[in-house]
Each structure stands twice: as C-alpha cells, then as structure tokens.
C-alpha cells in the first residue's frame, strides 16, 4: 500500500465536503440515489450500443446511427455518475482505499475507458466498411463484450463495496 496515497485519502476525507458527505443526514442518501440513477441511465444505454456491436440487437440500424442517437443521453448519465461518485468518495476515501472491491471497481472503470478509447481511435475509423453490417467485424464485437463485462463488474463491485466498506 502506498502510504502517501493513503494519507492523501485521509486528507480528502478531512475536507469540509468530505465531512458533509459523511455526517449529513440527507446529503449522503441523496448523493447515492443520484449516483445510482446516473449509472442506470449511462450503463443501461451503453449496453445497447454494445449489443449492436455484437450483432444481437437493432441489426437493421447502422452502428453510427445507434451511436449518434443514444450516446448523448449516456454521456449525461456518465457525467452525473462520475460527479456524484467522486463526491461520495470524498466522504469515505480512506475506507475505500483499503477496500478490495473499490480497487476492482477502479480497474473495471479503467478497462471500460481504455476499451472506449481503442474503439474510437482504431476500430471506429473503418466504420464505413461495416456500419450497416448486421454482424460487425471481430474487433468491434470484442469491444462490445469487453464493455459489457467491464460495466457489469463496475456495478457488482460497487454494490459489494458498499456492503464491505467498514469490514476489518
């Protein structure tokens, strides 16, 4: 465990925002509610782009159209989820740092982010060749599977984290 990182987490917890999140009666419940709603919106939409990449759903609709129509809503959900998640973190940073499920959640989030970057910078560049194909090429399908696995892990680890945050 990196000591300096743990001390940084302790300092984050000691900020006025961290104290508010931890000690206010309604602040924490409302933040968690917003976080869950943001997650349901973003992941609930992203999975449909992933299923299109896998050739499972909306196979008659071009991938680029599915992306254009659905992703703006998902981005709003991601923004809400990240902001509320970061705010919740300030209240429990040191406990979260020691929690194994939080680490799993962060790794899964990083995997989802890298997967999205690889998709946009590499796979999507040749989309004009497979945009209308009912079954996109293997790299696109792999990106879809990785995204579904990563987000499922984020949700499961997130819930496990909330049940085990203060366990020794």
């Amino acid at each position: 465990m990196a000591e300096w990182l743990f001390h940084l987490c302790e300092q984050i917890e000691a900020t006025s925002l961290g104290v508010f999140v931890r000690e206010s009666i309604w602040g924490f419940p409302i933040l968690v509610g917003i976080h869950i709603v943001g997650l349901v919106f973003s992941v609930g939409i992203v999975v449909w782009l992933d299923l299109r990449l896998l050739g499972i759903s909306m196979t008659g609709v071009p991938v680029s159209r599915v992306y254009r129509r659905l992703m703006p809503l998902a981005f709003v959900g991601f923004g809400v989820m990240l902001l509320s998640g970061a705010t919740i973190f300030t209240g429990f940073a040191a406990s979260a740092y020691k929690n194994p499920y939080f680490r799993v959640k962060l790794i899964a989030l990083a995997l989802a982010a890298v997967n999205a970057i690889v998709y946009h910078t590499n796979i999507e560049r040749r989309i004009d060749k497979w945009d209308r194909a009912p079954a996109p090429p293997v790299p696109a399908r792999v990106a879809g599977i990785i995204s579904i696995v990563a987000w499922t892990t984020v949700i499961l680890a997130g819930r496990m984290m909330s049940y085990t945050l203060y366990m020794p």
Partner: protein
Amino acid sequence: MREQGVRQGDPESQVPSPERVDYSSVADMSSLFSAIEKSTVAMAIRDSTILTGGLSGLHLIGLTLLLGSALVSSAALAGWIVNDQPIAEVTRATRRASIVGLCISVATGLLLVSFRLSMSLGTRAFRIKMLTLAAAAVFHFTVYLPAARGRNSVVGRGLAGVLAFLLWFGVVLGGCAFILLE
C-alpha cells in the same frame, strides 16, 4: 359426535365476528412472513455479506437492463432511432431484454427482502415501490408490449414508450428511497 367435539374444543368455530376473521388472517400473514424470514435461504442471505452484496449487484444489473431497455424502446417507438423499418423489428431485442431485466430484479429483490419481509412491508418507500412496480408491470404487458410489437394500443406508440419508461424510472426511484430510508 366427533364433529361436535371438535367444534366445542375449537374457539375459532364459534360464531365469527368480522374483527376475528381479520385478526386471524393478519396472524396467518404474520406467521407466513415469519416462516419466510426464518427459512434457510433467508438466514443464509442475512448472514452473508457476499450473498447480500452479490444479490444487490444483480438487482441493480436487472434494473439497469430494464430501464435501459425501456429508454431505448421508447426512443425507437417515438421514431428517434429509425423510422423506415417495422417497429417490431427494432424493438424485438429491447422487449426480450426488459423481460429478462424484470425477472432478474424481481427474483433478486424477493431474495433481498426475504429476511426482513415484515420490516420492509412496514416501510412507506417499499410499499410505494411495490405499487409503482405493479402499475409498471400492468402497463408493460397491456399497453407497451402491443405497441412495441406494432399492434394497436390504447395510446400512441411514442406515448406508450414514454409512459413505460417513466413508470420503470419510478420503480428505480422507489428502490433508491427504500435503500436510503430503511
């Protein structure tokens, strides 16, 4: 003779008053809830953080699938995704996914409240969530599904999609309220 003996020894066989019937049914429900709460499965869930957390995660995955399906489906019904293809083709996967999401969230939800059934039913947020869930399920099967299959529906396609989404969103909000207020 035997029947008489049973009647004489059984105070419940006296002339029933409405109050008595009510109390007895409440007692029956209480004993049923108590039996569910003390069942092996409920006790195992109560005593295991891994099981409770895992079920909670699966419950959220089910709700995510359900609400995402409702959102994408309502966009499709409103002609937002595509308007030159049969609507049943576009919404086929979302219809199936919404049923899968509903099954996952109901099954895991029942398991999650199995060890605190009486307490949960006494919570206003839980009762509101259950009422919203019932309304959403009835609307889903009677209005939304026919519209999503391209059949005649009592309301327009776009409106059916929007209402279905709002009702399922209400279930998620009720769930959040229940988690946070219990």
